[in-house]
């Protein structure tokens, strides 16, 4: 029972991680730009959702409105600042987007303060019986549903539509895409805006579960990096596989690894080693995968 519940938790976490990773992997793949401020967009999404829910009094409305709001902010950022970074070297991009994190974090703190609570809607705060005798929180089920729906929609757009094709072309070979006449600057802005929108969905949906606070973007950002490294830059499929993997390994690892160690090792080692190894489980997985496939599991570029 516990296993099934934790597996669902892992899936839920993984799907939300996918929303962040998908936008990020496209930015990396198409623009060849490292954007550390992606986590800040997630934070902005959560703060905007909290503010809008408070203003409108409706959870659904607040969350829905935060999405275009964050997308707009993301696109504004892209057009004004990030565009100048595409031509620059990676170090400059790292430092400039790092500076952006500092600015955005402080900016949010000045406007809203360090935290902004977003309470769970009452209707969803109870458990749902998935199978007789097995309750699972309704809200988490909603997250899984939303995550899966967005993943499906994303797949449809990327695989079946014209703009999706342009995105894939850009990810696999930017020069060729340019040569084929694709309006690359507009595509970039669109991709960036889409990425910001996805961040907003994740930020808003996770807000009732985690705390909405300044700096929440950074820790999840690094996980998103791990996902992309595992999945392969520029690949949405890789991002999906990577995030589910990371979500599962992290959640299940933290729950079961200490117990596993306790069964195999003497107690004084198990109590120290168990939680330690559990907290770095995903990094070890990443290291192993990288050892055999330095380009990740499904790299978009040849």
């Amino acid at each position, binding site marked *: 029972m516990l296993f099934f519940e934790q597996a669902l938790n892992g899936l839920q976490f993984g799907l939300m991680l996918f929303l962040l990773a998908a936008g990020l992997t496209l930015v990396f793949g198409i623009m060849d730009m490292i954007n550390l401020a992606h986590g800040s967009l997630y934070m902005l999404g959560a703060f905007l959702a909290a503010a809008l829910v408070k203003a409108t009094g409706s959870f659904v409305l607040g969350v829905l409105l935060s999405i275009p709001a964050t997308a707009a902010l993301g696109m504004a950022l892209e057009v004004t600042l990030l565009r100048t970074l595409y031509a620059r070297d990676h170090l400059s991009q790292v430092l400039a987007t790092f500076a952006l994190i500092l600015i955005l974090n402080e900016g949010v703190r000045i406007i809203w303060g360090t935290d902004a609570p977003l309470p769970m809607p009452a209707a969803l705060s109870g458990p749902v019986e998935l199978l007789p005798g097995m309750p699972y929180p309704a809200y988490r089920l909603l997250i899984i549903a939303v995550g899966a729906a967005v993943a499906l929609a994303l797949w449809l757009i990327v695989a079946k539509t014209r703009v999706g094709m342009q995105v894939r072309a850009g990810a696999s070979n930017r020069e060729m895409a340019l040569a084929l006449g694709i309006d690359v600057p507009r595509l970039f802005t669109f991709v960036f805006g889409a990425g910001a929108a996805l961040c907003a969905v994740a930020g808003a949906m996770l807000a009732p579960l985690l705390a909405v606070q300044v700096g929440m973007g950074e820790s999840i950002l690094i996980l998103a990096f791990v996902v992309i490294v595992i999945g392969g*830059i520029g690949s949405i499929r890789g991002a999906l596989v990577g995030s589910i993997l990371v979500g599962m390994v992290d959640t299940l690892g933290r729950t079961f690894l200490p117990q596993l160690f306790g069964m195999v090792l003497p107690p004084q080692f198990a109590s120290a080693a168990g939680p330690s190894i559990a907290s770095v489980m995903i990094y070890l997985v990443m290291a192993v995968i*990288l050892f055999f496939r330095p380009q*990740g599991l499904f790299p978009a570029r040849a």
Partner: protein
Amino acid sequence: MFFVALPIVLKAADQTFYLSFASRVLITALAATSLNLVLGYGGMVSFGHAAFVGTGAYVASIALAEGIPSAWIGWPAAVLASGLAALLIGAISLRTRGVYFIMITLAFAQMVYYLVNSMKAYGGDEGLTLPSRASLGLGPDLGDELTFYYVVLAILSLALFSFHRLIHSRFGRALVAIRENEARAEALGFPTLRYKLVAFALAGAAGGLAGALLASHGKYVNPNILHWTQSGTLLIMVILGGVGRLWGGVIGAAALLLLEHVMAEHRFAWLAALAPNYQQHASLGVGIVLLAVVLYAPQGIAGLFSKKTHA
């Protein structure tokens, strides 16, 4: 010479705080310079350097906490441990490049952070307070600020001199060649991956030494020293001071620490008029300055004073 004379003046004026601050600047300069080797001369954007500084700090701290006060044991152990960590992390990370490499170094550094954070035996997230500074055993008492300062100065000077020799040695030339045109460097017969790894490990080891000194300096260590934002701070110092220039790390560390100190301690009336509690939002200022430097002065402070385009 300034560095030698200054502390005497300070001690005479009984400014122990500033003496201690000066030591911290020098130690940070060592850390930033070690990153400069890998970043400026090797061209590798390592976003995980704090992991090596932190490893050194923790190994040195554990030695002290476990009752081994000798610096002759603790500090070399720190250097060895961080060098080894850099070798391992580098061996996996350096097989990738570009954006991958940056993210992977970041991820591995976080891994070390979480690992150390979970070590309850050594303080976990609360950190570890040390009984005393390391001891040289022969007479000079590192507990004395002036003595400690001179020891740190000596170590930094030796490090900078070695750095200077390294840059002009065969290895240094090969490393810069790899940075400038890796494909051609390999086509000439240089084993590029091997040399990058050696540079990475050396930089990690030097960073570890800085970490060990830092632990003794504050007699306290905590996992935050390993946090990725610390890696970011080191990167900021290097770019501020001048990437790929000998004094870049030193200038950058001094500039940033002095700036932080001044901003925190002195209240500028004109800034206060604009925003009364501006000091609480210091990182906003840092962010803006950093952005400006990246966009408009990417060669850093050292670059402003020298028009060198040579490699």
